[in-house]
């Protein structure tokens, strides 16, 4: 055995991973069954899904509190800290690639598939034979099959939401600066503001969805414009929800005095996550709303 302080901490057996695997099992079965049961009276899927989510939430709570205890007991070396940081960075990279796929789909339908359906490139006959009336313009408010919808403008709610998210990134950054300088009060205030801004964003996003569904006929099934709009903003909104929750947990932990100026990986990771969500929104705002 080497001196423990320089050796790598290998945790003992743990129940949390297997609980997490069982949770994911129920989530997958529950989500699949829920989707199959759409439009029927059966609701067993929803119950299984809820059970799965409950197990995962409990797992995260338990697993993270183990990690926090270990960290507070001083069992983590700098090397361990680097493992966490690198792990989080690669996780964010995988998230980026998830959004890349949907952005790719957006570019393809905008620039290639609708263009060809309208007779573009060497597809004159495609246009004439399939849907001669169809015109390829983006936003695609009239689909080839003739369904109509309205485009969501970028002024109004989306612009306000952009400002909210950008501001939240700034407040979070300064919260972090204050954490590193050990200024507790500004840290708490700025972090609380960030969480509030995240919540505001979500409320406005819901408002926008209600507006789209009730008044604009812009729905998830309204042709590829609606598809890409809701899948991109929807997955982004889901990430904002997670991010806000993460920052809220960080706020609670700050109030409990968990972090030190030079030891606050969880805070850092949540903050990276938040900035990532922010950058995705900028891409969305530009490619989905403006152009």
């Amino acid at each position, binding site marked *: 055995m080497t001196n423990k302080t320089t050796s790598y901490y*290998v945790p003992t057996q743990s129940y949390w991973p297997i609980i*997490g695997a069982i949770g*994911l099992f129920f989530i997958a079965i529950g989500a699949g069954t829920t989707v199959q049961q759409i439009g029927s009276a059966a609701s067993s899927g929803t119950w299984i899904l809820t059970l799965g989510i409950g197990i995962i939430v409990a797992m995260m709570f338990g697993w993270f509190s183990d990690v926090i205890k270990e960290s507070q007991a001083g069992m983590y070396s700098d090397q361990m800290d680097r493992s966490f940081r690198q792990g989080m960075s690669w996780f964010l990279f995988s998230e980026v690639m998830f959004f890349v796929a949907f952005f*790719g789909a957006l570019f393809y339908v905008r620039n290639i598939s609708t263009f060809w359906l309208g007779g573009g490139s*060497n597809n004159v006959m495609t246009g004439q034979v399939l849907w001669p009336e169809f015109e390829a313009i983006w936003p695609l408010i009239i689909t*080839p*099959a003739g369904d109509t919808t309205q485009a969501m403008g970028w002024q109004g709610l989306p612009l306000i939401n952009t400002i909210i998210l950008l501001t939240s990134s700034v407040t979070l950054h300064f919260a972090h600066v204050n954490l590193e300088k050990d200024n507790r009060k500004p840290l708490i205030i700025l972090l609380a503001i960030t969480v509030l801004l995240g919540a505001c964003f979500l409320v406005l996003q819901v408002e926008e969805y209600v507006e789209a569904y009730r008044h604009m006929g812009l729905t998830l099934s309204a042709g590829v414009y609606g*598809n890409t709009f809701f899948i991109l903003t929807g997955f982004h909104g889901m990430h904002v929800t997670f991010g806000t929750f993460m920052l809220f947990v960080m706020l609670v932990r700050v109030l409990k005095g968990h972090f030190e100026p030079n030891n606050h990986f969880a805070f850092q990771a949540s903050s990276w996550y938040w900035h990532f969500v922010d950058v995705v929104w900028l891409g969305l705002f530009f490619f989905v709303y403006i152009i």
Partner: protein
Amino acid sequence: MADTIVQGGNENSTEQNNTDQKSTAHHHQPPKGIMRWILTTNHKDIGTLYLCFSFLMFLVGGGMAMVIRAELYQPGLQIIEPGFFNQMTTVHGLIMVFGAVMPAFTGLANWLIPMMIGAPDMALPRMNNWSFWILPMAFAILLSSLFMEGGGPNFGWTFYAPLSTTYSPDSTALFVFAIHIMGISSILGAINVIVTIINMRAPGMTYMKMPLFVWTWLITAFLLIAVMPVLAATVTMVLTDKYFGTSFFEAAGGGDPVLFQHIFWFFGHPEVYIMILPSFGIISAIIPTFSRKKLFGYSSMVYATASIAVLSFTVWAHHMFTTGMPLTAELFFMYCTMLISVPTGVKVFNWVATMWRGSMTFETPMLFAIAFIVLFTIGGFSGLMLAITPADFQYHDTYFVVAHFHYVLVTGAIFSIMAASYYWVPKWTGHMYDERLGKLHFWCSLISVNVLFFPMHFLGLAGMPRRVPDYALQFADFNQLVSIGGFAFGLSQLIFLVVMIKCVRGGTKAPAKPWEGAEGLEWDLPSPAPYHSHTTPPVIK
């Protein structure tokens, strides 16, 4: 627990007493019973789990291949319904890709990488356990969907829209979520591998000193993290198209079924390299050992691997030459695809050059490695033929394609996994395997696998389409031959099972370094390797 900490002279021991009651007690001896395997955070235990699971899936997926070959033994429909035939081809593919080959490589990575780089364990041991245990869950869901009303997935492992959207069975929702959690497992596993390699190397183990298996896995892990999320996005769009009325893959709403193929193959082509790069690492370890020479061109191997990984993102549409893409795109993807044969050629050249004038011996791992080089090269050449756009118009969707990817995946990936198992099993179990049975396994596999797959080239060139339960009479003779080869290959794998079980239970004691020409830190550890690999970082020369 006291002695380990006292020996360690730890200043923090009092704090640790509270939270760390059991952990140090486990540092030398694994706990007993089934809970050892369920709760383990040990890279060797998890590696063993991955390898056993992968072999089980190999048998299940192989059983499905037997059903397919039994139906194709004669023209006409004899044994199963065409619908069930489609489910068999689909699930056979999914299981072999996600259940057999990928977990086998992850298992090898778990076992070997910490030993090879001089680390005590993987960087994130608890997450390691999680990544494994998600897999049986995912496959339980996938396999159970076969017994549901309407049947299991029947759209081919590539689940092209609209087969997977408009025309798919109701169990597709479960297929989608099974793929989702499989993807989570792969991403978590890959993050663990990449962080272990970047952060856990012993002092002095610079990147250009790493064994090639570690290098190839580093790059594989990068590919996994880059493309598994894309697969998740693809299945999500299939789900919304089927159940929520979106039209990503439906022209009437402005989408395009070809979009599915683009996104799928943007995942799918790097995925192909995910399944072969670790093989290159394995072969690069085995060939020098039994040639008793250093690997020829180490750094060119590293650069070739990296180039293959980069190029793998620019070739996806060679799977789609017949979809009516613009001519420029067809040419671009054709040339990029052919470009990949350059780094691959570098590798084959280096392996052959390593053997050149070596004092070679032919133990079972070496036999599998040499067979890999020859047969994988055949698969590579048929790939080159398929890359030629105008030629592909004839080969597309024929048995030629089936022959091609089975040469690279069975005689490529699977043979390398077999080679790795024989090569490192003395280190894992502390016993030598039965060399005579190993050689028997090799020769049975080698002959039967060629009887199985080689005639498929001729069938394909003669025009037999893939994924059909029935065929025209002129294909009967070759199909019969192929089926006989298939059953023989399937049965030969049971020899492997026997060899491995025998080796776990006993056999000649293996020394720390059972192969005289072997190099690498794993051979400095005793056989079987201790429960925790390098508790102190080893000295790297």
